[in-house]
Structure formats: structure tokens, C-alpha cells
């Protein structure tokens, strides 16, 4: 009986099997992923081995590893990598120290904690482009508030070849320290109070508790936070785009991402830009693997 009832219904009213429902849900995502991610990834890998200018009528011409060879011997590229590496190290390092420190301070109850925490999280919620723009005003040598407060009229930040990188680090740390703090705070709250009580009964000093309970138990989350920040910082684009006017002064703050953009859309050298993007990708993958190995180690899986 149920079979015939089902067959009399119009097609669109018939119940779907579990399998059909699975397919119906997965297909749109899969198609979108293919079109927007997988295909460009493979296509750009192909282009990185070709001579190709997107604004020229000629179709891509296979040149093997010529693009890679040219890039890796170009001092300008090395400069970009140095800028990016310095930025990643300084920014993520600062964010880590401040973020973890703040998390330790916030990991107790005090009046106004909720409000203060919310205020601390605001920078993270802003758009990097907006942040870059208003920090540019803040750093302005003529009427910026920083120079006014420091009583250093005319002191250059974003327009100074060395200090421009520090300006980027300061703004990035301002923006992303709360992120590390938030994750570290989550890790700290997850440590059962009874472990500290057991340690207190067992006569452990504060430092011993921090070293042997807090640090090892929060370190998996800290590593994940560092991993996310490192990957993100290595791709830095929007902040120097606005804050230091597309990597200035000169190319003092031209990160690898900015350089890829310049190659691809200003010089229309599509082949080279694809190759550089792939070099950056490999470096980021290698870096994240270092973090993931460390993560496995602290979790006792290695």
C-alpha cells in the first residue's frame, strides 16, 4: 500500500531518500568550491609555468620553470620576503606576548570585566582597510594624535623607510592582540580548577603551577592561535595598502602579497605573479606544518 500511495504523488512531492538528500545538500557547495577554488588553483599552477600576459591577445606559452628561476634570483623579491618575514615575526611575537599576558590578567573576576573585555575585542571586529585609514591619520606627522601626545611634532611614521614597518606592526598588534587573548582566555578557562587546588595542596609554588599546569595545558590552543595569526600575517595585504600607501615609502613595506598584486594587475605579468603566489603558498604550508608538528608534540601524539 505505501508504495502505490507514494507513486500517485507528483514527483516534487515524493519523499527523497537519505542518499538523495545528502547529494542535494552537498552538490551546490561542491560546485561553488570547484568553480571558485579548485579550478583557479589548478589553472594558476599551470599559468605559473607559462609566459602569459592577461591583457595581451597571445594565449599562455609553456616556459617550464623560467618564471620561478627569474623570481628567485630577483633581489626585489627577496626584499619583499624579508619585509614579510620581519613583519610576521615582530607582529605575531608582539601579539603573542601581549595577548597571553592580557589573557592571564583577564583570567580572574573583577568589577567591569565584561565591559572591558568587550572594549578590548572591538579592534578585531573592524575592517583592516578602515583600520589602516584611520591609523594613517593617527600617525600623521603634522596633526596626528601620536606625535601630539609624544610631543614629537613632525616625527615620521608611515613615511619613514624604517619606521613604516614598525607602524604596520603596531597597528597589526593593536588589531589582533585581542584575538590571541581571546583564544588564550578560552584555554585558561578550560583548565579545571581542581588541578590548581591539587597543586596548592601539594605545595607547588605559583611559578611551578604556571610552568607545569597552566603553560602545558594552554599551549595547544596558543599554538593554534599562533598558526592562524602567522598564516594571516604572511599574507598581509590590506594594511600596507592603506596605511603605507601600497607598500611605501618606496617599496619599504611591500609585502609579498602586495608584490603579487603589482605583478598581476599593474604589470599584467600573470605567469610570474602565479609563480610567486605558489612560492608564498609553499612557504605558508611549510610554516603551518611546523606549527602542527609542535601541536602534536605538546598533545603527546608524537
Amino acid at each position, binding site marked *: 500500500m505505501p508504495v502505490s500511495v507514494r507513486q500517485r504523488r507528483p514527483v516534487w512531492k515524493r519523499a527523497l531518500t537519505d542518499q538523495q538528500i545528502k547529494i542535494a545538500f552537498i552538490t551546490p557547495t561542491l560546485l561553488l568550491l570547484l568553480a571558485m577554488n579548485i579550478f583557479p588553483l589548478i589553472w594558476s599552477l599551470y599559468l605559473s609555468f607559462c609566459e602569459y600576459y592577461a591583457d595581451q591577445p597571445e594565449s599562455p606559452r609553456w616556459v617550464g620553470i623560467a618564471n620561478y628561476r627569474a623570481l628567485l634570483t630577483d633581489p626585489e623579491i627577496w626584499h619583499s620576503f624579508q619585509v614579510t618575514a620581519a613583519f610576521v615575526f615582530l607582529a605575531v611575537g608582539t601579539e603573542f606576548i601581549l595577548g597571553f599576558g592580557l589573557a592571564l590578567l583577564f583570567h580572574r573576576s573583577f568589577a567591569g570585566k565584561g565591559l572591558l573585555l568587550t572594549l578590548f575585542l572591538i579592534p578585531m571586529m573592524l575592517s583592516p582597510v578602515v583600520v589602516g585609514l584611520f591609523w594613517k591619520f593617527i600617525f600623521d606627522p603634522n596633526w596626528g594624535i601620536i606625535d601630539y601626545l609624544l610631543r614629537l611634532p613632525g616625527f615620521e611614521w608611515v613615511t619613514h623607510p624604517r619606521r613604516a614597518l614598525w607602524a604596520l606592526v603596531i597597528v597589526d598588534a593593536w588589531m589582533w592582540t585581542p584575538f590571541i587573548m581571546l583564544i588564550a582566555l578560552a584555554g585558561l578557562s578550560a583548565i579545571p580548577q581542581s588541578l590548581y*587546588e*591539587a597543586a596548592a*595542596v*601539594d*605545595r607547588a*609554588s605559583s611559578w611551578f603551577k604556571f610552568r*607545569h599546569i597552566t603553560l602545558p595545558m594552554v599551549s595547544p590552543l596558543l599554538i593554534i592561535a599562533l598558526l592562524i595569526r602567522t598564516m594571516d600575517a604572511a599574507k598581509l595585504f590590506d594594511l600596507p595598502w592603506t596605511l603605507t600607501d601600497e607598500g611605501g615609502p618606496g617599496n619599504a613595506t611591500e609585502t609579498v602579497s602586495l608584490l603579487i598584486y603589482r605583478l598581476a594587475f599593474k604589470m599584467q605579468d600573470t605567469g610570474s605573479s602565479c609563480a610567486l603566489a605558489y612560492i608564498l603558498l609553499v612557504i605558508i604550508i611549510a610554516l603551518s606544518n611546523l606549527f602542527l608538528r609542535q601541536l602534536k608534540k605538546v598533545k603527546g601524539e608524537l
Partner: protein
Amino acid sequence: MSPEPTGGTMAELVVENIVKTFGDVYALKGVSFSVKNGEFVVLLGPSGSGKTTALRCVAGLEKPDRGHIFIDGQRVNEMPPADRDIAFVFQNYALYPHLTVFENLAFPLRAVGTGKAEVNERVQNVARILHIEHLLHRRPHHLSSGEMQRVALGRAIIRRPKLFLMDEPLSNLDALLRAEMRAELKRLQKDLGTTTLFVTHDQLEAMSMGDRIAVLDQGQIQQIGSPDEIYHRPANLFVASFVGSPAMNLVPCRLAEENGQRRLIVEDSNWSLPLPPEVARAAQEGRAPSRLVLGIRAEDLSVSLSASDGAVAAEVYVLEPLGAETIVNVLIGPHVLKVRTRPTFTASIRQTVYMTWNQEGVRVFDAQTEKALG
């Protein structure tokens, strides 16, 4: 566990009238008890009775609002836990998840900078006592709850503290293992001779392990005594109904004159009993309350299929065969009484049986104050 003279120092604990509030909730309303040198005292009470709070006050993890705690005659209220020379076994064991069993056991020693060789020797020694030598290199999440429990115990005894404080250490074990660990833990405590305060909600644990039991309810001590006293002479209705399995039968009754003799009459029933001496005395002195509660243990009642002199007719409500014994539930008037019988006893529901009782086992409580008479 083999006897192992670890030479743990002994201590005496005295708790005097401690009061502890959380906000406007009174967790402890003036609790006093003591634990003598080498004694095993159990704090027994239902959840929310304040027993864990009392234990945590002794440990220094909570600070009592009022009252005094003395360890070896020294007032320790203001002393941090580390200076009290105690070991605490937590209900959830509180093992350090990122450390191996060896490192967990070594933690209390390393925390005070004990030398490597001594740490090694003492860890091995404790592991041998507790039969966990094969687990030393594992981490806690690879252990069964029974193994974790042993490690937690090990971390307590490795210190050779003055005082063991245990917060329901057996409650996370399955029933079989719990029964086994009860005996092992009791023997270990006797071998080590360490003064122990043990918290539990399980009256069977309290009965089987404690030298003395302090029954706690609603932040107040209800009775302190040996397991035997607690079981046979409960001080009030709470203790009577909380301790023992099955709990003491409690039925409302009153004093009445019968054939010129004062007797106890169970309300709404045909059951009347002679007065126990303490009730007779109270009645003579005119201080017997009007509303009473009769208490009698299941083993002080017996049933028979045939009528006998002095037996009360009762109706079988249901039978609970437990293997070694059978609990017969009988109706006396509207009251259900549990009667312990031999396992061979059989009867059908609603059958009439004849109940007799051991007059020695009769306890009488004031229904108003809930306290035992006498």
C-alpha cells in the same frame, strides 16, 4: 596491597563550630567533630549537606567564616593549604592530563624540589603498593577509572602527609570495583596509620570503612558515633532513614492504655507493642510527646505463614528476593514495612502473614523534634 611501613606522621584534627556561607546560603551552620591520631573518620551526608565544604575548609581550599580548625593543636584557619601538610584526593581525581602516571606521582615531590633519585625511589615504591607499576608511562586518558583512582591515591600517599582528606574517591567507580576498593583502601589506611577524613554520600561505604561516622545534613552534624551506634541507635529520624539498606522502618505511633498497661499503638493498625524502657521512663516522668514515630530495622522483624502468640497479622505487599536474603514488604494498616527473611521464604501478594519483632530493636522518636527518645 602489602603492608608497607612508610612512616607517615600522624596528626589529630579538631574542627570547632565552623560556619561557612556562600552568598546568603549557609553551607555549614556550626559543625564540630574531631579525628584522632590514626583514625578513619567518615563524613556522611546526602548531596548538598555540606560535607565537601567541611572537607575543603579543613584542606584550606575554603575559608570558614567562623569557628576554628586545629591540626595537632595548631589553629590553621589562616594557613594556606601548602603549609598544612595534608593530601587531598579529589572526586574527579584531578590528575594532570598532560603528565604521565610517573610524573603525576612525582608532582608533589618535585614541587618541593625533591632530588631525582629519591623521587624515583618513592614513585616506584608507591607504584608497587598500589599495583600500578605497569602504568607509569601512560597518561591519564589511557587509564580506566579504577586505575586513575589508584594514581590519585598514590599521589596522596607519596607525600607521607599528616592527614589524608578524601572527597568521594570511590564514587566514580563501578559497583564491583567500588566494593573491592573499599576493603583495599581501609587496609591501606590501617597499614599506613595516617589520620584520614573521608567524605561520602554512600552509607555502605561509611559503615564499612569508618572507625567513626559523622552524619551531616543541611550543614549540621546529626550524629557522631561508631558505625554500630549510627546503625542501631540513630539519634534522629534523618539518620534512621539515611543509614542502612533497607533504611529503618519508620511508622507513626502513639502511647495508649491497653488492658491497664501503657503500650505503643501504631497508627491506623492493629499493632501494639510494649514500651521500650526509655519511653516508659519518659512516660512516667510525664515528658513523653503525644506524637511518636516507631523505628525498627528490617532484621528485627520476622514473618511467618502460621499464626503464633503475640504475632501481628499483616498482608504481603511484595517480595524482593536479593539472593542472600529476601526483603518481604508487608502492610500493617496503611504502612509498608520491610522485613528481612531467609531467601527460601515464599508467599504470594495479598497473602496474610504473621509478623513478630525483636523488642530490643524498637526505637522511638519524637515526631515533632524528630529526635530519638531516651
